[in-house]
C-alpha cells in the first residue's frame, strides 16, 4: 500500500534521520579522533582510526599526565557536585517548608528575597563575591577561595533561590492535616520535617537534583573564579580549559579529554532519561 500519507511519513523519517546524523556527527568526530596519533589528526580528521587501541593509550595519557591532573579533577568534581547537590536540596527544602507553613510578614519578605535572587545575573555579583571571600579570610582567617567549602557555599547561595521556589510550589499542595496530627502526637518541628515531609518530597527532590547536577558538573566561570584555573583544586571543566587553552593544541589528547568528560554524563542520561528530561524542562518553566 503506497498511499500518500505513508510516503510523506517515510520522507519525514528520512529528514529526521538526517537531522539526527547532524546532531550526532560532532560526537562521531570526537570518538574517531580520540583514537588517532597526533600527526594523523590534522591531515585526516574524518578518516576512521587505524588502531582503536590508540584510544586506550590516549585515555591512559590523559588520566596519568601530571600537567593535566585529570584523575584529581574527577575526584574534585565528584566531591563538589555531590556535596553541593545534597546541601542545596536539604537546605532549600527546609527553608521552603518553613516559608510555606509560617504566615507572617517576615516569611513573605524572606521568600521575596529568594525570588529576587533569580533575576540577579552571575556577572553582576562575581567580582564583589571574590573580593568578599578575600575579606572573610582577612577578617576571621577562614579561607574561602580555592577551598571546597568556599565552592560549596557558593553553589548553595546560587542554587537555593530556584530550589526554594520549586519546593515552595510543591509543599503548598501538601495538606496540613498530616502535620497537625503529628503535632498533637507530640512531634517536634524537626521530627515532622524529616519523618513526614521529606518522604513526600521525593519527586520534587529528584527534579531539583537533576536540575542542579548538570549545572554544577559542567559549570566553568564560577569555579574558575573561586578555585582558579590551574590551582590545587580543579573541576573537570577547569582541568580541560587549562590543558586545551595552552599554546600548542594537541587535538588528539583534547578530543580524548572531551570524550572522557562527556561520556559519564551521556551514560547517566541513558539510564535516567525520562526523569532527566522532565527535571530539566521543569526547571526552565518556573
Amino acid at each position: 500500500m503506497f498511499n500518500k500519507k505513508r510516503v510523506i511519513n517515510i520522507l519525514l523519517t528520512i529528514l529526521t534521520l538526517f537531522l539526527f546524523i547532524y546532531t550526532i556527527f560532532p560526537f562521531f568526530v570526537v570518538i574517531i579522533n580520540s583514537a588517532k596519533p597526533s600527526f594523523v589528526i590534522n591531515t585526516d580528521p574524518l578518516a576512521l582510526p587505524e588502531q582503536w587501541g590508540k584510544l586506550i593509550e590516549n585515555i591512559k595519557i590523559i588520566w596519568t599526565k601530571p600537567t593535566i591532573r585529570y584523575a584529581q579533577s574527577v575526584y574534585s568534581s565528584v566531591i563538589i557536585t555531590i556535596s553541593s547537590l545534597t546541601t542545596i536540596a536539604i537546605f532549600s527544602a527546609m527553608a521552603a517548608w518553613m516559608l510555606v507553613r509560617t504566615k507572617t510578614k517576615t516569611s513573605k519578605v524572606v521568600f521575596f528575597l529568594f525570588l529576587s535572587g533569580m533575576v540577579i545575573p552571575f556577572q553582576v555579583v562575581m567580582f564583589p563575591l571574590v573580593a568578599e571571600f578575600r575579606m572573610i579570610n582577612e577578617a576571621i582567617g577562614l579561607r574561602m577561595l580555592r577551598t571546597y567549602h568556599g565552592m560549596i557555599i557558593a553553589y548553595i547561595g546560587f542554587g537555593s533561590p530556584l530550589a526554594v521556589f520549586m519546593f515552595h510550589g510543591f509543599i503548598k499542595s501538601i495538606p496540613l492535616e498530616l502535620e497537625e496530627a503529628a503535632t498533637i502526637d507530640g512531634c517536634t518541628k524537626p521530627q515532622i520535617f524529616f519523618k513526614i515531609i521529606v518522604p513526600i518530597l521525593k519527586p520534587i527532590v529528584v527534579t531539583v537534583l537533576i536540575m542542579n547536577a548538570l549545572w554544577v558538573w559542567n559549570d566553568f566561570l564560577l569555579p574558575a573564579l573561586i578555585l582558579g584555573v590551574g590551582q590545587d583544586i580543579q573541576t573537570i571543566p577547569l582541568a580541560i580549559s587549562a590543558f586545551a587553552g595552552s599554546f600548542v593544541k594537541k587535538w588528539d589528547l583534547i578530543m580524548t579529554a572531551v570524550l572522557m568528560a562527556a561520556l559519564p554524563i551521556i551514560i547517566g542520561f541513558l539510564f535516567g532519561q525520562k526523569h532527566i528530561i522532565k527535571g530539566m524542562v521543569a526547571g526552565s518553566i518556573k
Partner: protein
Amino acid sequence: MYGFELGDDNMSRQSKEKIYFWLFLAPALLAFIIVVIIPFFMGIYYSMTDWTAIAGEEATFIGIENYKSMFTDTAFHYSFIRTFSFTIISVLSINFIALSLAILVTREIKFKNFFRAGFFIPNLIGGLVLGYIWQFIFKSVAPEIGEIIGFQWLQDALLLTESDTALVAVVMAFTWQYAGYIMMIYVAALLNVPQELIEASQIDGANFFQRLRNITIPMIAQAFTISSFLTLVTSFKQYDIIIALTNGGPTSEFAGEIVNSTEFLAVYIYNVAFKYNRMAEGQARAVVFFLILLVVSIVQVYYNQKKEVEM
C-alpha cells in the same frame, strides 16, 4: 484542647516556633545572603568608585564616572551591538529548529523516542567542552568536508578567522547545544493539543500548513513565549561556549578601533575587569547588564500575566 496554648506555655511555644523558623531558614538564607545579596550591593557601590580589587587599596567614591565612560567606550558599543545580533539570530535559529524538530518527533514516525533522546543529548555537554569540539570541527573538519564535496569556499574558509562567520559559528554551536532542550518544551506543548481539534480540521479538509497556522501555533503560544524568553536570556548571558570556541576573537575594526568580534557582553565584562584591569568599570558594565536583564524579566512577567488573563 486549646488549653495548653494559653498562659506562659503559649509564650514559650511562640518563641520556640520563632527559633525553629530561623533555624530552618538559616543555612540556605545565610549562604544566599553571603553569596548573592551582599556582593550585589557591594557591586553597586564598587561601580561608583575607583575600585581596583588590589588588597590594601581603598576604593574612593567617584560618582557615576564609570557609567559615563560607557558612552565613549567603543569596545563596549561594539560588544553591545554584537551581543544583540547574536541574541536575535540565536533566538530565531534555536526556536525555528526546535519547533521543527518537535513537530517531526511528535508525528507518527518510527523510532521517535530514540530521535527525541538523540536531539536532547548535546544539551548534556557543558558549554566549555562543546566549544572545544566545535573549534576542532570548524578548524579541521570543515575544510576537509569542503575538499570532499568539492566546495572551494568551505575548503578555504577559516570560519573562525572572519568576524561575521565567527559569530555564525558561535550561533551554530549554541543552536546545536540548545535546540534539543527547547524542542522538549515544544514537544510537551504539542502533546497537549487536543486530538479532536486536529481530527476535526482533517475532516474539514485542512492541509498541514493550514493546521499549523490555525490550530497548532495558537495552541502552543505559551510554549512559544517561554522558549523565546529562555533562549533570549541564555543567549544574552552566553560565556562558556565563546571562551572555548573563539575566545572573543577574531579581531575586527569598528569606528576606527580594533575590537574583538565575538566578545559579547558577558565576555566583555570579564575582560574589562581582569584582562584590562579596569575592575570598577567592568563592575559598572555588569550593573548595566543586570538592568537590561531585569527589564527583560519584567516584560516577561507582564507578558505571562496578560496571557493568563486572556485565557
